[in-house]
């Protein structure tokens, strides 16, 4: 069975190679036969990699502990869900998984474009093929999933209990779908540059894929934060760890790209910028996975080095050389005739939005790579701590929030200050009311006051967009308000989906501000019956609690919780002691409300004195982060739905293409 898997991967390397050769030569010689053969090679590669994945999963599910990978990451009693997730638990399996997602995307793109984008597709296939070959080389020679052990152990090591959590199980697939998805616009950008077809087809046709990648990356990041919060038990959700940063940086450049394409669409400007952003996002996604796996930067996720680093570096280098080379080659044709009309215009807010996002991405990248750079230059590793990242990203975020509020309201080309101020009246009033209200409620924290006021400014602006749009439509078509609203958002899914995303992001920011600026913590050692308090809550230690489960025994401290005197139930933070001998894990318990989270960690218990040591955090507004994330997700989905206007535009352009061919 494992040999079959290895054979499939070797064969996939061959079909992948043929896809590259056939598509490239098919393009050079304009041979339809070769191009069709390349398409079939992509399908074949997909099939072979899929077979390899199925084989590995089969080996995991049939407890083939003679395979090193299965013995390392699975065991007999592992829950079926996590056996499935064991596919990506280790290095080689996760590379195979990345490869699988890549060929899935490639096959889908080829299928969707069977009769479209014919001038671009051959080189799109070439690009996909080259990337696939890199991962195929890794999985065939450097990091093989189907390696056998010299003996067959009776049982495997099993999966670390902290990873046996539903969110942790889907966090890598989510991130990979995001990272790998960035290959799609990259491939089209490469094809556009190489063929000289530099109009907006390449990004229009990949727009949904780009939003999809952005969505998956963002969701993966949030899932990671949620997992860190509930499972790791240090009370926080983001640590500016290099591996965390590696996922955030391409997300930022992708966000910038999603905005700046709108300018290219309208004004045919910023073409070089957009191509650079797409190339950068792709390169950053490869860099991201490189940082995570190679261990060149110390992180809680990986300390020690692995030997696939140099190969990744080589591949990155190749990609940089080719993409920058192509870009420079086409630079003269990409120079746009148009210029920015005015400083006060929607175009300029988009431009500043991009500068801020890319600036933040660059800052985080710099801080993350600093140890490597300092080692190269000064021979000693110097790391950059969390304060740097916070100090840099907070002002940038606040500036972005402000733009979020101004941009939808400001006109294209040239805005008249009077009209602008008129539209901003209500949001500004909302902002001032918020500030006054918060001050009156006793808030004195400047950072919080500014952040919350600005986010409220954006929330009001965004809601007003819905209101003004509905009103305008009602006036124009005479429809009733309800109907006008529905047809408004139906016909402009991207615009209003985007506004929903903005609202979601504002909620996330409110959650971050609350849980950062106003967090409280306390450590208390209490005997049975004793209480301590934090914020409005009083906690009374009742007793130790013990639960017996098949894989582990749970021991925890039961504390009765009182919200200002009113009982609200009990929390039982504790630890799991595993029967298979793995190290015990901390299991926190949390009381979630919209207003705040009461987060408890059991530090220790003294049996003789009957005292428990408990650490409690109060995290105000923290749940708004998850609520805001959910709203952002809904907004992104809505924006990806097909649009009547888009379909009409597609039909029109297809008609024109047919006419051109006929002529």
């Amino acid at each position, binding site marked *: 069975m494992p040999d079959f898997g290895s054979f499939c991967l070797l064969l996939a390397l061959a079909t992948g190679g043929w896809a590259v050769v056939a598509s490239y030569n098919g393009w050079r010689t304009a041979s339809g036969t070769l191009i069709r053969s390349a398409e079939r090679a992509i399908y074949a590669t997909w099939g072979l990699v899929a077979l390899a994945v199925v084989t590995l999963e089969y080996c995991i599910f049939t407890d083939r502990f003679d395979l090193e*990978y299965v*013995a*390392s*990451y699975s065991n007999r009693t592992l829950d079926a869900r996590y056996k499935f997730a064991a596919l990506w638990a*280790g*290095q080689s399996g*996760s590379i195979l998984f990345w490869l699988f997602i890549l060929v899935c995307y490639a096959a889908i793109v080829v299928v969707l474009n069977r009769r479209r984008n014919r001038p671009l597709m051959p080189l799109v296939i070439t690009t996909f093929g080259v990337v696939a070959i890199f991962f195929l080389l890794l999985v065939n020679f450097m990091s093989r999933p189907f390696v056998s*052990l010299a003996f067959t*152990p009776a049982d495997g*090591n*099993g999966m*670390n209990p*902290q*990873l046996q959590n539903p969110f942790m199980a889907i966090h890598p697939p989510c991130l990979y779908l995001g990272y790998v998805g960035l290959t799609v616009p990259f491939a089209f950008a490469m094809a556009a540059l190489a063929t000289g077809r530099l109009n907006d087809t390449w990004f229009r046709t990949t727009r949904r894929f780009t939003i999809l990648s952005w969505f998956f990356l963002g969701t993966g990041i949030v899932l990671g934060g949620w997992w860190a919060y509930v499972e790791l*038990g240090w009370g926080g959700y983001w640590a500016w760890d290099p591996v965390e940063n590696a996922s955030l940086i391409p997300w930022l450049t992708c966000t910038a790209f999603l905005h700046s394409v709108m300018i290219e669409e309208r004004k045919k400007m910023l073409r070089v910028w957009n191509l650079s952003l797409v190339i950068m996002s792709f390169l950053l996604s490869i860099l991201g996975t490189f940082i*995570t*796996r190679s261990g060149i930067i*110390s992180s*809680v*996720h*990986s*300390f*020690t*080095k692995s*030997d696939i680093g140099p190969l990744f570096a080589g591949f990155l280098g190749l990609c940089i050389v080719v993409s920058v080379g192509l870009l420079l080659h086409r630079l003269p044709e990409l120079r746009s005739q*148009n*210029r920015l009309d005015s*400083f006060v215009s929607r175009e*300029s807010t988009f431009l*500043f939005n991009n500068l*801020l996002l890319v*600036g933040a991405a660059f*800052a985080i990248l*710099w*801080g993350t790579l*600093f*140890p490597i750079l300092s080692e190269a230059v000064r021979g*000693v*590793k*110097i*790391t*950059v*701590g969390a304060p*740097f*990242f916070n*100090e*840099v990203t907070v*002002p*940038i975020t606040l500036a972005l929030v402000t733009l979020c509020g101004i941009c939808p309201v400001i006109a294209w080309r040239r805005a008249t200050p009077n009209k602008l101020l008129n539209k901003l009246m209500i949001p500004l009033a909302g902002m001032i009311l918020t500030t006054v209200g918060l001050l009156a409620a006793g808030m004195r924290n400047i950072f919080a006051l500014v952040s919350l006021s600005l986010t409220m400014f954006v929330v009001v602006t965004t809601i007003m967009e819905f209101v003004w749009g509905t009103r305008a439509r009602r006036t124009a078509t005479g429809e009733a308000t309800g109907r006008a609203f529905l047809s408004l958002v139906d016909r402009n899914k991207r615009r209003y989906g985007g506004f929903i995303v903005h609202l979601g992001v504002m909620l996330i920011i409110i959650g971050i501000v609350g849980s950062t600026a106003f967090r409280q913590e306390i450590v208390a*050692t209490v005997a049975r019956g004793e209480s301590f308090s934090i914020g409005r809550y009083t906690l009374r230690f009742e007793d130790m609690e013990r639960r017996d489960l098949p894989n582990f025994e749970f021991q925890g401290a039961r504390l009765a919780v009182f919200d200002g005197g009113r009982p609200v139930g009990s929390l039982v933070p504790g630890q799991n002691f595993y029967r*298979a*001998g*793995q*190290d015990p894990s*901390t299991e926190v318990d949390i009381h979630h409300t919209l207003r705040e989270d009461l987060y408890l*960690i059991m*530090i*220790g218990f003294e049996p003789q*004195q009957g005292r428990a040591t408990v*650490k409690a955090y109060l995290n105000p507004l923290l749940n708004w982060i998850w609520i805001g994330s959910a709203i952002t997700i809904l907004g992104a989905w809505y924006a990806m739905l097909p649009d009547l206007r888009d379909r009409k535009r597609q039909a029109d352009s297809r008609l024109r293409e047919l006419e051109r061919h006929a002529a």
Partner: protein
Amino acid sequence: MTRPVPKKIIITISLLAAGFAVLFGVGLRGSLVYYLTVSEFLERRAEDLGDNFRVNGNVLEGSIERTPGAIGARFIATDGAHRLPVVYAKETPDTFVDGSEIVVEGQLGPDGVFVAHTLMAKCPSKYEAQNRESDYKAPATSAGPAGQDPASR
């Protein structure tokens, strides 16, 4: 025919760039921390490298001491060649066990004990080291950094 970029845009971009540079400089200054192995740290201790350090090493087997009722622990960090006693006063992560790979951040106290305000212990699973021949560790042996080590504890 191309029109020149409005002067205000250029000024704003320059201001933004300057702002970035300032943010960077200020942020970096406060946050740079040397990252050294135990041996490197002990060698350089005499030099005046500033306050905060990150030291990377492994937990010496059997060296973890905890006081019942109190949080934190004392232990000895080693990189195989040298040893450094460390004291940490907050709750330790679950991955902090004998032999696990750790990074501590803090300062050397007057008594030669490293006072850590941050302790990171290697995250479980994920991508194993090059040094080990195989990801799989048979139950009989128990030495080596934590990760997928089973049984015998």
